[in-house]
């Protein structure tokens, strides 16, 4: 298993390098110049021109590539054009914010999704199943931005029980630790709910379908014939096999842990990776775009690796040499 993991990690290095090189060239070939935003109003008309020189954007593309490559090899990701800050520092600040949001959203997603799926599958064709199906379809169809705004208007503005935006209240930095954490939790409720609930509906559907397929297998009938309790049949024998597609789904969801969720982050002013990436793309902030691609790329590779490893734990037929 260890050798397998090492081999997978080693093979990821050229993949990442290729991805970053591709991104480097593709974003520079895209129309739009990072300094174009500054050719406006009461700014020095020649500012954009000077800024291009200062940022090294006038260098030929191969020269820019070599400079960038030298930076990457020495562990530097460069400086953001729009935020005037080291990209490493920006990531160090943004990734924890994103993880805080996405981790709990994933817990909510898989926690609620699996339970709903199991209940729905076990009550197949009964009113509970129909109700959960309608609910899942409803939640899955609601656009995130709409749900977010409705919750802000309903729960935050009209009921005034939760904050509408941000990670903390304005003066939270002066609160004692417990109060600070409570303030944080209150700010997390709405964005985590919006992010987790729609995905939970989808996960629930997967879980239902998978479990329904498994309970029709011969070995489940055998287990029941042996006189095992329904709890053991479902919990020990059926659920374990039914989890395989869910694990694939989980592996595919891992990049989202660091990739963030742009719509929810924007609606709730949550300073995470999703919004950072999109803002960087619109501003043609090349160093930030490449760094965000790196993070997403790493997470896709890690996600797939984790899913593959988890298969081995769930499915005894799978062994990695």
């Amino acid at each position, binding site marked *: 298993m260890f050798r397998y993991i090492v081999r997978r990690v080693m093979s990821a290095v050229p993949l990442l390098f290729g991805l970053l090189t591709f991104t480097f060239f593709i974003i520079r070939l895209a*129309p*739009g*110049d*990072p300094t*174009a*935003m*500054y*050719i*406006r*109003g*009461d*700014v*020095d*008309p*020649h*500012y*954009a021109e*000077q*800024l291009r*020189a*200062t940022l090294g954007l006038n260098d030929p593309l191969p020269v820019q590539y070599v400079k960038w490559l030298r930076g990457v090899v020495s562990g530097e990701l460069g*400086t953001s054009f*729009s*935020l*005037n*800050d080291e990209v490493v520092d*920006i990531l160090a*600040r*943004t990734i924890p914010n994103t993880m805080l949001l996405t981790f709990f959203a994933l817990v909510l997603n898989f926690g609620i999704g699996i339970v709903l799926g199991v209940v729905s599958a076990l009550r197949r064709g009964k009113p509970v199943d129909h109700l959960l199906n309608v609910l899942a379809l409803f939640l899955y169809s609601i656009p995130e931005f709409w749900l977010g*705004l409705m919750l*802000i*208007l309903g729960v*935050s*503005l009209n009921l*005034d029980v939760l*904050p*509408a*935006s*941000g*990670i*903390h*209240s*304005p*003066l939270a*930095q*002066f*609160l004692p630790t*417990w*109060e600070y*954490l*409570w303030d944080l*939790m209150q700010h997390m409720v709405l964005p985590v709910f919006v992010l987790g609930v729609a995905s939970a509906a989808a996960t629930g559907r997967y879980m239902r379908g998978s479990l329904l397929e498994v309970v029709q297998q011969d070995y489940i009938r055998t287990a029941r014939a042996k006189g095992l309790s329904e709890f053991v049949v479902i919990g020990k024998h059926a659920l374990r096999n039914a989890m395989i597609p869910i694990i694939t789904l989980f592996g595919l969801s891992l990049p989202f842990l660091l990739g963030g969720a742009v719509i929810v982050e*924007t*609606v*709730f*002013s949550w*300073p995470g990776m999703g919004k*950072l990436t999109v803002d960087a793309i*619109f*501003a043609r902030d090349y160093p930030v775009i490449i760094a965000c691609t790196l993070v997403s790329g790493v997470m896709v590779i890690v996600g797939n690796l984790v899913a593959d490893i988890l298969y081995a734990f769930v499915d005894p037929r799978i062994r990695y040499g």
Partner: protein
Amino acid sequence: MTPRLLFVSVLCCAMLIGCGKRSADKDAMAETAVVAISGDADNLNPVVANTTVASDIASGVYPMMFDVEFDLREGKLKFGPGLVTSWEFANDGKDVILHIRKDVRWEDGMPVTTEDIKFSYELYGDPDVASPRRNYVESMIFTNGKFDIDRSVTIVDDTTMIFHFVKTYPLQLFHLNLSPIPKHVYHNADRRTLRTNPANERAMGAGPFRLEEWVRQQQITLVRNGKAALPYPAKLERVVFRVISEPTTRLTELKKGTVDLMRPVYPEDVKEIQEKNPDIKLITLPPRNYDYIGWMNIDIEAYHNKKVIKPHPLFGDRRVRQALTYGIDRRSILREKLQSYGELAVTDFSPIFRWAINKTLVPYPYDPEKARQLLRLAGWSDSNGDGILDKGGRNFEFTLYYNAGNKRREYVATVVQDNLKQLGIRCKIQAVENIVLYQNIDEKKYDAFIDGFSVGLAIDPSDRWGDVMNPFNTVGFQNSRIAELLKLGLHVQNEREAGPFWMEIQSILHQEQPVTFMYWVKEIVGVNRRLKNTNINTLGITDRMWDWTIGDPNTAMTQ
């Protein structure tokens, strides 16, 4: 203690603390104003900062050279003493002698001196620094094409200095109003990386506030600078600038009372706020931004391929441009999108400069018949009966570009398309990403586009209507008389003397219609009535922020 009991105890404690927090917060918030901002400041070093938020913060943290106000009755800037206690002109107005206060100190206790000011201007003028306000030193002395700080600025002593200009012009004091930064902090800083210098994060100033905390992409907290002598320590303990990028969320926070000040409030939200939120006061800013439709005046292909300037095949004729303005129902757009928060534009001279406005000019009315007549005179007719005007075998058709996501301009584009169709002009509309639009406008790649412009606080049309190569002359408009008038208007010593020149330029622009000037936008600012003594005006929403106080929402506001 069982795990379940432990969990319940922790939850109860947390809830109790949570309940208590509100009152603790309330006490602190009684001395704190919260301003919602749509995006973070790009930099807190005023030499390289470029966003409005950064300027707002700089005005509270850094010493200001002059106490500036914009007199709306006269329509001009007025300068009072700030860090500069008094000033005088010498050498036929080309030299400005400044006397600096002795008692102003940086946060670390070092005095603010003439050396700091000279050093800061050296940075503003250094092309390696790439300051967005480098043009402020353009009329000082250059040697071999490089800004010569030693010949431009003479230090007489710690409190007296002389700025040398190559000419007299109305904006001299305005150009001397750049915020200084402490030389002892930045004197070893690498110029090319000044924008990422770690000292920018800690922004050391000498103003009524000091920077307490800057959590990037989240909030900037300013706290009262108890030692401030310029003008005095802020009356409020804190001002927090919170980044809330989504407009609906920002407005919700204002309605909830968790934000005290925000911009912009959209005209479509005004009625509901007035009906349901008596705690919110809406203030309208005088217009400094306008939208226009740019018609490329010059033939783009000839300009790019042969560097030859010749009239554009569609819009090169003045009569065609006039016809297009007559043919667009600007008033209906105004009514639909801005209501009373906008006014039709005659030219790009803002109505705030009352003394310079040519009042004999009136906006072009919506007159499709007049438009058809002008197009006929310019040789455009539907000779082949396909419903589209043509001339010399070329149909009158083009693409109108605008920035995606801007709903007002999207509406304008559809109205223009419809209006022009009635004249026999085929106008395709296409939304493009902001940054692509700006780049292509800058590179003069579009035949027609919708854009906006924000005018400065003093009249200087040279950036807009000067040389065809000028980045702000987006449509390549050339006029020799305007070039002469610009020289005359920008070389007077007293601003008022330029009035006749500016009025003549407006007449020419009105006649030539290099672009269709659409409307001026009067931005709406929302303020919670508990925030007192605000001075929201054309200079910005945080002008004289140090006078802000928090009080009873039911008592009268100063503004």
